[in-house]
Structures are given as structure tokens and as C-alpha cells.
């Protein structure tokens, strides 16, 4: 599975990458983007199988990225890893087409549990 990790923090992209490697998810490749706008370009150029995305980013937020993808007919699997934890934001994410919503701080166990929806 090729995964696109979208987060404006390099440190968090590395943490997500390391945590993914600790799960049972079969990861063949990881590509990165620093915001939603850059992620749109990477979706076109890299054709990932899954997007794991932060919520708050400069240029384009994660929710705006998801809604842009869905409005264009792109059904790519998409999930959030974010410090936003309010029920309203989680609901918006799921109603917009996210498959999972992981709140920071997370562990390998909580990430693995959330990713079971992909099976």
C-alpha cells in the first residue's frame, strides 16, 4: 500500500511513518506533503492508496483537501490524524468521506485499531 502522509510538521510526518511501520498495515511506500494543496499534486503524481492527513495546515486544511477530492469524484481512502478532538469536527470528517479519525496523542495500538476499517 502506498500512503500519502499530509502534515505541515516534519516531526509529525516522521512519527506517523514510524508508527505505521509498527502496525500490521502492509506499507510499500510512503510519500509526504506539507499541506492540502501540495497533497493534491502528490495524489496526481504518486497515485497513493491511502491518505493520512492532519486537519490544521497552511495553504489548505485537511478537511478542504478531502472535500476537494470527493467533489472531483476521487474516492481514495482518507483518514485524519489530528489534535482536533471535538465531536463536531469528527462528525464533519466522517460525513465528508473520511474512513477514520485518529486524535493526537496516539500510540501504535490506537492507530492499528483505527486502521482496521481498511481491512
Amino acid at each position, binding site marked *: 500500500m502506498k500512503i500519502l502522509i499530509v502534515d505541515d510538521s516534519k516531526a509529525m510526518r516522521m512519527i506517523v511513518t514510524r508508527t505505521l511501520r509498527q502496525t500490521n498495515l502492509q506499507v510499500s511506500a510512503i510519500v509526504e506533503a506539507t499541506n492540502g494543496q501540495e497533497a493534491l499534486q502528490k495524489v496526481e503524481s504518486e497515485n497513493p492508496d491511502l491518505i493520512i492527513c492532519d486537519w490544521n495546515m497552511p495553504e489548505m486544511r485537511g478537511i478542504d483537501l478531502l472535500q476537494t477530492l470527493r467533489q472531483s469524484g476521487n474516492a481514495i481512502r482518507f483518514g485524519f490524524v489530528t489534535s482536533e478532538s*471535538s465531536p463536531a469536527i469528527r462528525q464533519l470528517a466522517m460525513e465528508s468521506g473520511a474512513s477514520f479519525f485518529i486524535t493526537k*496523542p496516539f500510540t501504535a495500538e490506537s492507530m492499528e485499531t483505527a486502521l482496521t476499517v481498511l481491512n
Partner: protein
Amino acid sequence: MLSSQDIEVISSNVCRDMLGLNFEVDSPSLSRPLPLQAAVRISGDYDAIVEVSTTSAAATAVTSVMCGLGPDNIGEQDLADALGEIVNIIGGNIKGALPGETTLSLPCVNLENSSDEPLSNGSTVFADFLLVNEPFRVRLSKSPRA
């Protein structure tokens, strides 16, 4: 307004449980200014600023763990990124515990020997910790309404 104990729990979940860092609650001591500072703003039904402040040694150690870099390979951008992400996660969890609908800003980081004065003059609650045996403070300051 949250309590210092709430801040202790949130900060421990981030620094100890997620990042695996050596992290413990310390005695509060505002007389000890800390030179590096990162902050996020909470806006909406509740207005506040969440700040973390610490030493260069702690920031370097934290960045090394988060980024998988040796201390000699860490630049200012890496420090700013790591501190910014820590305040983003702590701030996001504090925001989640506050009433009403609110938004969280992107983090702002000051690596240049800040005064460590609160960024807001409203009521403040804080907690002091030892992060990798260095002082680390998390402060929640409510913004006074205009």
C-alpha cells in the same frame, strides 16, 4: 477554565505516552523564566492562548526523538517544528476540553530567548514539568473579552 491537574494529564499523555520521553511533574516555579516558547491561540466561544516554554537542551532532546536526528544534526527549523507540534497537540487537547465551539491556530514559535511572560493578561493556569530532566512549562491563559 481547566486546572493545573488537567494540564498535567494532557501534557503527560503527549510527552510520556506518545513520545516516550522522560517526563514528570515538577514543583511550580514562575520565578524560573524559560527561553524557548511556542504557542497556539484558541478562538471562538472561549478565547485563550496555550504556551509551552522550555530550555534549548530540552528542545534539542525532544527534537532528536521526534525527528530521529542526532543532536548535532538539528537546526533551528527542526527545533521550531518539534516545539510547534508539541504545543499544537497539547493545545488541541486543551481546546477539546474547553466549552463551546472554538478553533485552533497554527503554532507560533520563538527560539530567541523569550521573556517567558504570558502572551495574554487574562487569568492563567500553568503546570511545570521536568522533560528529559529539563524544565518545561505549559501555560493556559484566558484572553480577556474586549
